[in-house]
C-alpha cells in the first residue's frame, strides 16, 4: 500500500514524457510459427519480450557464466550443429565429462520434460540452474558463486541497461532469477520449423525428392518390402510436430512426458545399463525405469551425431541397424549383454527387415529434417563471435 503514491507518481511522470513513454514500453513478442504448430506454453511469470530474449542471447553465449570463464551455454550448444556439440559426452568447464550427450535446444520450448531423463525438470528457468550451479557433474561450475556472477553482470557496462530493459518492473533487475528467465526466454525463441519436410507438409510438392518421400512414407507407418505394415514403428516415439512424442504446448492439458528403453544395453537379468547412466532409474530407483530415456526430437538429426544419450552410436545408418536388430548386442567388455533381450525394452522394438534401398530412403528423409535457417539465423547467433 505504501507503494501506491510512488506508483502514481511514476505513472504521472511517464505521462508527462509524451512520446518517449511509448518508446520505453516493452515491445510485444511476435511468434514466427507455422499454422500447423501450436504456440508453446509460456510461464505466467516469464512473458516473452524482445528485450528479454536479446539479453538471454547474450547470457547464453557469455563465458562469464562459468566460474573459470572458459565456457558458456553455447559451448555445448553450438548453432552450426543444431545446438549440440558433436561429442559423445559433453565436457564441462573444468574438464569433467558429463555422462550424457548435449541435447539440441531447438524447439526446447515444446519439451514435455528437459534433459535426457528427468521427470522433475519441466521449466527451462529451473533447468538452467543445473548447468550453472550443478556439482555432479561440474558444468559451468558456479556453485556458491552466485554473488560473483551478479557482480560480473553489474560490472559489465553492457548488462545493467539490458537487464533494466528486460525487467522494467524490477527495482534491482540483476538477479539469478532474471538470468534464468532471460536465458529461458532466449531458448524458447529458438525455433526450427523450416526443413524441407516442413515445406512439403505446408503443401510444396517439390520440397522432397522421391527417395525422401519414400522414406517419409516408411517413417510414418508404410509397408516395407517384406510386406509388413508399419514395419519400422518410427513415429510412435518420434511423431508429432517435434518428431518426439514427448511434447508440450500452450493448449496441452495432458502430461506428455515420455521415457522408454530402446535396448542399448542389458548388463544383467534386471536390464541394467552402465552404472551412473541408467536413465530415469538414476532418479527413481525403480528397476522398471532402467534404461528409460526421453526420445529426442529428430529435427536436425543429421547434425546431432553421435547419437543416443551417451553418444554410443556414430551414424544414422548404425542407428537403423540397431533398431533393425531390435536392440544392441555387445559381445564383450564391461558392458557386454544383449540389449534386444532387455526386460524393460519398449514392446514396439521387435526388429524388422530392411533393404539397403529402404535404409537409404529413411536416411534421406531424416536428412530432410534439417533446417538450414536454424544454423545461420542471426537472431540465434553468438553476439560475441564478432568481438
Amino acid at each position, binding site marked *: 500500500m505504501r507503494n501506491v503514491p510512488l506508483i502514481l507518481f511514476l505513472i504521472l511522470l511517464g505521462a508527462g514524457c509524451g512520446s518517449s513513454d511509448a518508446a520505453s514500453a516493452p515491445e510485444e513478442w511476435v511468434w514466427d510459427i507455422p499454422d500447423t504448430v501450436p504456440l508453446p506454453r509460456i510461464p505466467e511469470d516469464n512473458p516473452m519480450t524482445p528485450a528479454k530474449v536479446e539479453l538471454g542471447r547474450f547470457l547464453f553465449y557469455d563465458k562469464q557464466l562459468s566460474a573459470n570463464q572458459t565456457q558458456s551455454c553455447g559451448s555445448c550448444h553450438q548453432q552450426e550443429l543444431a545446438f549440440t556439440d558433436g561429442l559423445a559426452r559433453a565436457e564441462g568447464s573444468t574438464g569433467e565429462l558429463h555422462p550424457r550427450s548435449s541435447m539440441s535446444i531447438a524447439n526446447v520450448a515444446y519439451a514435455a520434460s528437459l534433459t535426457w531423463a528427468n521427470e522433475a525438470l519441466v521449466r527451462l528457468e529451473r533447468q538452467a*540452474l543445473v548447468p550453472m550451479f550443478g556439482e555432479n557433474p561440474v558444468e559451468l561450475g558456479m556453485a556458491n558463486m552466485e554473488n560473483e556472477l551478479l557482480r560480473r553482470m553489474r560490472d559489465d557496462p553492457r548488462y545493467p541497461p539490458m537487464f533494466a530493459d528486460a525487467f522494467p518492473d524490477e527495482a534491482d533487475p540483476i538477479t539469478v532469477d532474471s538470468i534464468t528467465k532471460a536465458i529461458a526466454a532466449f531458448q524458447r525463441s529458438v525455433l526450427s520449423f523450416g526443413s524441407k519436410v516442413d515445406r512439403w507438409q505446408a503443401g510444396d510438392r517439390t520440397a522432397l525428392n522421391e527417395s525422401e518421400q519414400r522414406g517419409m512414407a516408411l517413417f510414418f507407418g508404410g509397408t516395407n518390402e517384406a510386406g509388413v505394415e508399419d514395419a519400422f514403428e518410427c513415429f510412435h516415439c518420434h511423431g508429432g510436430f517435434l518428431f518426439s512424442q514427448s511434447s508440450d504446448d500452450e493448449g496441452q492439458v495432458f502430461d506428455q512426458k515420455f521415457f522408454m528403453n530402446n535396448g542399448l544395453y542389458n548388463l544383467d537379468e534386471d536390464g541394467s545399463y552402465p552404472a551412473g547412466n541408467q536413465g530415469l*532409474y538414476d*532418479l527413481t530407483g525403480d528397476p522398471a525405469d532402467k534404461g528409460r530415456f526421453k526420445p529426442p526430437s529428430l529435427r536436425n538429426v543429421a547434425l546431432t551425431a553421435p547419437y543416443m544419450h551417451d553418444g554410443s552410436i556414430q551414424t544414422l545408418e548404425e542407428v537403423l541397424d540397431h533398431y533393425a536388430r531390435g536392440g544392441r548386442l555387445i559381445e564383450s567388455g564391461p558392458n557386454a549383454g544383449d540389449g534386444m533381450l532387455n526386460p524393460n525394452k519398449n514392446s514396439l522394438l521387435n526388429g524388422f527387415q530392411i533393404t539397403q534401398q529402404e535404409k537409404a530412403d529413411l536416411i534421406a528423409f531424416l536428412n530432410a529434417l534439417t533446417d538450414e535457417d536454424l544454423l545461420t539465423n542471426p537472431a540465434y547467433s553468438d553476439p560475441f563471435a564478432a568481438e
Partner: protein
Amino acid sequence: MKRREIMLGALCVASVASLGCSDDGGDGTQEVTIRFAGVVGTEPFVCGETYDNLGADDSSLEISDFRFYVQSVELKNQSGDYVPVALTENDWQAEGATLIDFEDGCTDLGTEPMNTTVTGTVPTGSYEGIRFEMGVPFEANHDNPSTAPSPLNLTSMHWDWQGGFKFLRIDSGTLSPTDWRMHLGSTGCDGDQLSGGTTACSAPNRTEVELESFAPESDTVVADLAALVEGAALDENQSGTPVGCMGGPADSDCAPLFNNLGLPFAGNAPSGAQIFFSVD
C-alpha cells in the same frame, strides 16, 4: 558479509536482552534456543580437519563441508505432547527450515559464518524431549530457489537436477570428482508442466529424529559424522557412480548411509531408527 555479521550481532543482543526479561512476555510464549553440535566420533568437527577410523574400512577423510537443514522442530512438554517451535525469521531460518552449518568456509563452496542453533518460540513451560526432521518442507523445497530467502538461496545447497535442496551436505578433500561426498535430498520427484511445480517425490528422504530425553536449556543435539558412515566402506565405490553418495537411489554406496539415517533405500526398509543424531 559485513551486513550479516552486524545482523548476527544484533540477534545476539536481542537474545541477551530477552534473557533479561521474564520467560513469558505476557503472551503465553517463551523464546527457545536449541543447540546443535557437529562431531566426528569423540572429536568436535573442525572444517578441513582430517579424521581417522571412519566407516567399515577405517578410512581417513579430510572433512570440508558439514551442513544440513532441519524442519518441523517440536518440543515435548510435561504432558508428553509435542508442540511446534515457531521459528524466528533470520538469515538462517525461513519458510520452516533452519540451516545448521558447521563449516566455516574452509573450501570455496562454503561460507564463513556458521550456525549451530534453531531459535524460536514455544508456549511457556518446560520441555523434556525433541523431535524434528532433517529436510526442507515440501513447498519450500520445490519452490523457485532463485527467489528464495536466506538460507534457501545458497546455490551450494541447491540440488537443481532433483528439483529441490540438498538436505544434507558433507564433502571431503577439495571436492574433486575423486573425493568422498554425501549429498542427500528428495529424489524421484515429478514435475507438472501446467504449474511448473513438483507434484510428488517417490523418495522424500526426510530423516525423522526423535530424542525423547532432551532439555533445551542444558542439552545439545549432536550430529555425529562417524555414526553416519558406520559400516560404510568409504574407500570403495560402485563403478560408474559418483564417489560417495550423491543421494541417487541407483548408487549402492548410499545403502549403509541411508540405513544409518533410518531411511528406506532402493525398496529396502531400514534396520532401525536413525543413529546420526543423539543428545549430549
